[in-house]
């Protein structure tokens, strides 16, 4: 695995773990039993620590924080979301274990492999923990449904990741084309504008009173009052 590519992957893991920590901490707010809340908080602490470990080795490889473009999701918005969240976390933590093992083997870096092995072991614990809590919280009748829903969510996330990559590639191609087509005409105008900005900066008088901030032209969002 190329060091830059490895760093980028680890950077993405760091963001996923940080996001996961937040999801666990948030989920704790909706749990009733103190022992469940405490267990959830402990998992959140551990995920935060994983994010830190990933970030540390990723930044050594030159990865930039927050550069993966992953959208943050709200998995738990109310108490009713808890079963799906636990099922999701049970499935995800299990899958991530395999993913980490593969990356560790491909990385060729003992330091990375060591961190991944340590985290992998913890994730295995989270998988069991989520399963245990799921059985304690969710009635047997709805358990299968929660697991099914979580599996679909997982597949949807994977699909979104692929589409994100395709979209990025597509956008790069189109933007490069636009750049090459328009650049020759636009460049002299832009250079001229920058020179003008540099050369003739005249004092200006613009008055903004409190409350007079102007809205931008509306860009086509649904008007909630319509």
């Amino acid at each position: 695995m190329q060091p830059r590519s490895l760093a980028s992957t680890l950077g993405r893991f760091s963001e996923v773990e940080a996001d996961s920590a937040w999801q666990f901490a948030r989920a704790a707010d909706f749990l009733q039993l103190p022992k469940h809340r405490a267990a959830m908080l402990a998992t959140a602490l551990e995920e935060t620590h994983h994010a830190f470990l990933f970030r540390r080795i990723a930044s050594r490889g030159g990865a930039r924080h927050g550069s993966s473009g992953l959208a943050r999701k709200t998995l738990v918005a109310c108490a009713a979301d808890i079963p799906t969240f636990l099922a999701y976390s049970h499935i995800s933590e299990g899958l991530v274990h395999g993913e980490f093992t593969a990356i560790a083997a491909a990385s060729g870096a003992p330091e990375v492999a060591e961190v991944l092995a340590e985290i992998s072991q913890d994730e295995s614990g989270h998988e069991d923990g989520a399963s245990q809590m799921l059985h304690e919280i969710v009635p047997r009748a709805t358990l299968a449904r929660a697991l099914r829903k979580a599996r679909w969510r997982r597949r949807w996330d994977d699909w979104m990741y692929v589409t994100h990559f395709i979209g990025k590639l597509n956008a790069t191609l189109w933007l490069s084309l636009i750049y090459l087509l328009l650049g020759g005409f636009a460049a002299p105008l832009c250079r001229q504008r920058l020179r003008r900005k540099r050369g003739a900066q005249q004092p200006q008088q613009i008055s903004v009173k409190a409350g007079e901030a102007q809205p931008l032209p509306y860009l086509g969002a649904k008007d909630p009052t319509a």
Partner: protein
Amino acid sequence: MNILGISADFHDASASLVMNGQLICSAAEERFTRIKHDARFPEQAVEFCLAQVGLNAGDLDRIVFYEQPWMKLTRVLTDVMSRFPRSINQFGRAGRSWLTQKLWIHNRISRAYDIHPDAVRFVPHHESHAAQAFYPSGFEQSAILTVDGVGEWTCTGIARGSRKEGITVLETEEYPNSVGLAYAAFTAFLGFKPNDGECSTMALAAFGKPIYADNVRRVLTPLSGGRYQLDPGFFNFFGDADRLFTPAFIRLFGEPRRPGDPLPFSSTSAPEHVSADQQRFADIAASIQLIFEEVLLGLARRAQALTGLDKLCLAGGTAMNAVAITRLLRECPFDQVFVPPDPGDGGAATGAALLACDEIPATSPPPTPYLGRQYPEQSVVEAIQTLSVESHHRLPGARAWSGRLTHKEYGDENALVEVVAEDISRGSLIGWVQGRFEQGPRALGNRSILADPSDAVAASRLSRAVKQRAPFRPYALSLAVEEAQRLIPGVDLREAARTGRWMQSIHAVNEGCVSAVRQALHVDLTTRPQICSPADNRIFHKLLHAFGARRGTAALLNTSFNESGSPIVSSPADALITFLHTDIDVLVLGMTVIRKAA
């Protein structure tokens, strides 16, 4: 009227809530996501702001974004296209982020909070900065100087603020003529991260002599009349963050420092050996610092000439440069200067919200930096319970601590501060978490790591095993207001109330007191103090006095409660993980003290 201010999509995304013209709460997104300088839309910060006062999104009258994205896009496109055909990668990168996110901020806000599109407003970046400084200042009228990297096009703004007439922008310097970006480029040249490591450039400057000042003047020229001129041939502001300068810049200043290369300087001891290259970097830092101060001073004089007023408010990221602010205080023609606790882009969310108020009350309560979230006692109890969870849920980085932590809750503040002061005086490092977290990047006694400022061993342990901090960067000093006259000769307490409460300026320490606070001083025996009164932070003020009663000086070494590369802790859980992960000896969560057993 409830107004939410938002800053996002560059760095330090934040949200602030203003109700009837009063700032109620403000927080940076990084405090919740744990990603330093998180630029993503501040979803969780907004959630906190609304929850703090029990509002729903539907109760908001306006949501104000701190800059005008369309204007900013014109600047980005103009800059990128002017470099055709070498800028194809930058075009692709910028195009993707604008097309997928930044351009649709209006829709995102409107949809996310189900608010009428007309209620979503956009204000110019530098006017957000102007408002964040002027409205909390309490001044009836003042000149306003805003200096940062770049907003839409504006890099520097001079304005007049008036409670009656609002904010009138008088003059601007536009991109690429930016003193802030020039400072960031020098920061990158010196091997620090731009938009983050400027404090390292400022700290390094103390070890050098400004022998490259003439070279710096060639690239950044202070002009007569207070303006300045940047030579764009030396800068590449649209390059990668670590290459904001051109080959011409390297020809003028030599090879840049590689990030991570050692610098032997220490704020508390003389270096054993300094190579010529290492000294060159310190000299370049001293040179850009000197020219930056000259530019800032020139701009302040110009602001005075344009407005004729005797008060100045200052904002923008460069207002974090405490050394330059101090020179400004000493030499500028204004009688009073105000710098808000978070003058950067995070605080601009506050400015945006204030700017959109129909009416700002004539009298406002004194500004406070304690505007973040306060976590309920219950979350402290749960964090402690977590320590005794007997299952496979082990604690991160703390497996060895299982069963080796003790905790005790104290009934009153006096007992608590006595115990903690005793610990500090015995050389312990204390993680101190109280009340609401601070707005901005400085820890001011609510999310702080504290130590005895005379204890070299504790300070060294703090640098090595907690902060992983370069030894040339000094720690700050928190001192009780009653101690200020003795520690800082000639300090004007009225002035300090505006520029010394939140570590905005630096001061030389009385020679006779140096040994008592040496570990919180820079190499030139100056410090960046937080002069704390009971009105600012009651329990922290008590702690300072409790420590003073033991060691003779009511002052503590104070640094932000975080590890290198992480944001300052916010929740008890964050504090716990940092405590367990580092060499901090004692963690104070509200009235509870947690110790690592021997």
